[in-house]
């Protein structure tokens, strides 16, 4: 007998509004339909009414967990059009901000996984460890979410000896905790039982649908922008691409944990080898007419910005695409064939961000 079950738009098992129509046969999902558009805010239109400096503030508010990547990619597009050179120091500082954000974002998603599989003590443990990253953000950038690190032609913050030491000490505190938790997440019976073989995304489907980020890397597809098309200081600080072959929730979880470890290494490497130089090269740059496309690797995957200018103070057209926009369609492949109770676990495994998908 088949049953239809609606999940959403506002549902206890979902963090953000989305509407699933699930066709069940017994306990198994036969088909899933998704309806979205509950948090469409028209930010793209708004961006075209604001000038280049105001858009720094606006783009940072598109999404909370990858808030740093939006202004980061946006400033790269403006700099490309205006031909602005960014100092090496600023590029390193951009990477530091980005990787700190990545660690915090991944750990949030991983703690949600623990929550959804019913392992609540592990969830609190992960969130508590994540607080170390939140402390860093609050102490260095003055905010726990929107760091406001980027500006046109450079960054808004600088690191001195004392701050570098502070970050290093905090990472020293975090790393053993990460190691301990990785061991639990990778080997614990409950986590393994709820994640291995659940929500499988085959490699061919990942390629066909243009899936990005840890979701793609969990299926063995490497399209890490930091590696494929390096930007800022990623050509010097080489990130290691984490690939897993399983394509299930477990593999995606493994990719995220391994990336957390690698990001800790990248932050350490960046702040201990910080080059000398100015943090901002031009205070009030002129933005000529032109168009540019830039990309960066947000915690959830590839983020792309298209910017077209006409020589005025405002963009003629600005368009961006966040990773969840692509990863969404993967759910149609992942969910059918699984148990109803696994839907929220699978949904969480693409690390969805609905408010930035719908803008």
């Amino acid at each position, binding site marked *: 007998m088949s049953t239809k079950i609606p999940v959403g738009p506002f549902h206890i098992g979902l963090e953000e509004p989305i509407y699933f129509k699930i066709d069940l046969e017994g306990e198994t999902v036969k088909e899933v339909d998704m309806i979205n558009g509950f948090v469409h805010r028209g930010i793209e239109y708004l961006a075209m009414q604001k000038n280049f400096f105001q858009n720094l503030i606006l783009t940072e508010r598109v999404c909370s967990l990858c808030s740093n990547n939006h202004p980061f990619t946006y400033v790269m597009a403006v700099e490309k059009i205006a031909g602005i050179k960014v100092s090496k120091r600023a590029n390193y500082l951009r990477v530091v901000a980005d990787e700190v954000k990545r660690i915090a974002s991944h750990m949030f998603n991983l703690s949600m996984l623990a929550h959804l599989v019913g392992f609540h003590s592990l969830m609190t443990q992960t969130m508590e460890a994540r607080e170390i990253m939140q402390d860093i953000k609050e102490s260095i950038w003055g905010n726990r979410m929107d760091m406001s690190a980027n500006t046109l032609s450079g960054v808004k913050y600088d690191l001195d000896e004392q701050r570098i030491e502070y970050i290093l000490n905090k990472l020293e505190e975090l790393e053993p905790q990460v190691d301990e938790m990785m061991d639990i997440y990778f080997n614990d019976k409950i986590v393994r039982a709820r994640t291995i073989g659940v929500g499988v995304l085959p490699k061919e489907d990942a390629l066909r649908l243009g899936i990005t980020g840890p979701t793609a890397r969990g299926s063995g597809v490497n399209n890490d*922008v930091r590696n494929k098309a390096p930007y800022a200081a990623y050509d010097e600080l080489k990130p290691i691409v984490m690939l897993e072959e399983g394509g299930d929730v477990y593999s995606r979880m493994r990719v995220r944990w391994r990336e957390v470890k690698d990001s800790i290494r990248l932050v350490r490497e960046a702040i201990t080898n910080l080059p000398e130089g100015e943090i901002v090269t031009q205070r009030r740059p002129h933005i000529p007419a032109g168009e540019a496309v830039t990309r960066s690797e947000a915690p959830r995957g590839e983020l792309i910005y298209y910017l077209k200018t006409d020589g005025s103070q405002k963009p003629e057209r600005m368009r961006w695409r966040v990773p969840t*926009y692509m990863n969404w369609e993967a759910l149609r492949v992942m969910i059918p064939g699984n148990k109803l109770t696994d839907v929220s676990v699978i949904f969480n495994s693409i690390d969805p961000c609905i408010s930035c998908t719908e803008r």
Partner: protein
Amino acid sequence: MYETLKRKVKTEIKERLDKDSYQIKEEIDEKGNVQIWVKLFNKKDILHIAQIIKDFGGRCVIISAYKSKDDDYVLVYHLDIDGMLVNVEATATDKKIDSITPILNSANWTEREFKEMYGIEPISHPNPARLFLDDSIAEGILAEYMPLSQAMNGAATCCMWERIESERNENEY
């Protein structure tokens, strides 16, 4: 890293498209990343381009639509082959363009989005349903002025309560 790939892609474009039907330029940034920019004069050629991208195992990243200064609808396709971006510009004056979703599945959402935002129709799209906007909102809404209270169907203002209030009185006997 991209030299050979770039050359191969350019040769394919040259072979499959008419000589005068497109313009091509390339851009290399300071990190050595290559981007190819193609401007199509015949919008039908987008299907050829999509096929080339598919043959190289590429994907559609996104399509940016906008209304140009001369009121033409312009679409910029951002396509990716193993980290190299191919940006293809096509003009859809009659607000119609062939859908590339049957060739590149990754273009599915973005074609639906420019349909609802700009009213440009992707011809023979497998699933041309609305993506984000409700059916009650007209197509091509991005070009129009729409008050927030109307967009939210009065959900955040006194309008909603007034409506509920009036309906409630109607139902009471």
